């Protein structure tokens, strides 16, 4: 099922929302979108995964690749992760290195500091 991506800026941070399946077919599009933001110097990204109903290992790998892409220059935060995704992040032990925030405000605060 197609992955629909929408991005907007909030306090200088890219908020990228994904809807659909994050699988082998869709993972390259998500990574390409983040590479595009990164190339423009927007290296702080909040990835809203509330609309992602299915994720497989390729999707997990894409998230990890984004983390490595923006990690040094900016940062990545995940919000809206469903239980299925959280379970996979626990299994792969990525939950301990990826920044998982409660909501968009908390995610952005952790990236740029609270007002």
């Amino acid at each position, binding site marked *: *099922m*197609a992955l629909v991506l929408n991005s907007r800026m909030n306090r200088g941070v890219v908020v990228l929302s994904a809807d*659909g*399946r994050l*699988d*082998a*077919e869709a993972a390259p599009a998500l990574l390409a979108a983040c590479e595009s933001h990164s190339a423009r110097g927007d290296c702080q990204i909040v990835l809203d995964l509330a609309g992602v109903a*299915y994720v*497989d*290992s*390729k999707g*997990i*790998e894409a998230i*990890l*690749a984004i983390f*490595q892409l923006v990690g040094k220059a900016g940062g990545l935060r995940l919000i809206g992760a469903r239980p*299925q995704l959280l379970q*996979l992040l626990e*299994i*792969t*032990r990525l939950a301990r*290195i990826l920044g998982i925030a409660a909501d968009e405000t908390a995610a952005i605060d952790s990236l740029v500091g609270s007002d």
Partner: protein
Amino acid sequence: MSTTDNHEQRSARILTVDDDPTFRQIVLALLRSEGYTVREASDGLTAIKLLQQESFDLVLLDLGLPGAGGLEVLAGAASWKSQPKVIVVSGDTTGPAILGSVRGQAYHYLAKPVNTVTLANVIQDALAAPAAMPLEVLSAREDWVELLVPCEASAPERVQSFLRYLEGDLPKATRESVGRAFCELLMNAIEWGGELDPRRRVRISFLKTVRFLMYRISDPGAGFQPEQLHHAAVTNESDEPFGHMSEREAQGLRPGGFGLLMAGQLVDELVFNEAHNEVVLIKYLN
């Protein structure tokens, strides 16, 4: 997806077959708003007549129809003017309906009630996918399904659209875990064993008993040697959860290698044959 692809998809001709006028009207409004050319039928005999006289790219087919049922419509595919992909959209999720649809070479199965976003996505994906090679049915018992699946990237989701309903009486969490593990391993088999060559096929078996649920996946490749999987997370020592990442970096591979680890954690047992081109995954019930 390119603009041209989108344009070609939007000019696709779709036949929707359903005896529920309300459902038909919702589908018609949805498809027309997306720019598709749509025809409709409220019974099986009208659908058969339209399929014999006109060309379609896609059919949305209910099963419980007056005149001739959906499975009868599918059975007559050889006499159709074109060979559209068929998405079954039905409230019937019994074994005979599911397995009859697989035998009839339906492309995908959606259980009612279905939301319009899901329906639109499945339609878009089906139209975008290349002409699918058939699923060959070797056994179609509700407790023992055996299929030969072409090595196509779309196959795991397609197969799972049918098989998930045969697990319908299990808790949702169990179904989701087993389904994800199965899709991971089937995609591995298709990608690595079958090299994404649709002429090659993966043999899958689904067995369900009172005490366990089992999938067996046999791919056409030569297998692999586990001692050479240093780039996979499954080989990491417990105190080095990301030890494989340096190996991947050295090999110029993208971050990843989590598929086998995930699949193994989502079921109770994961057993490979000696060559590692066959795998059995088991989930114990009760």
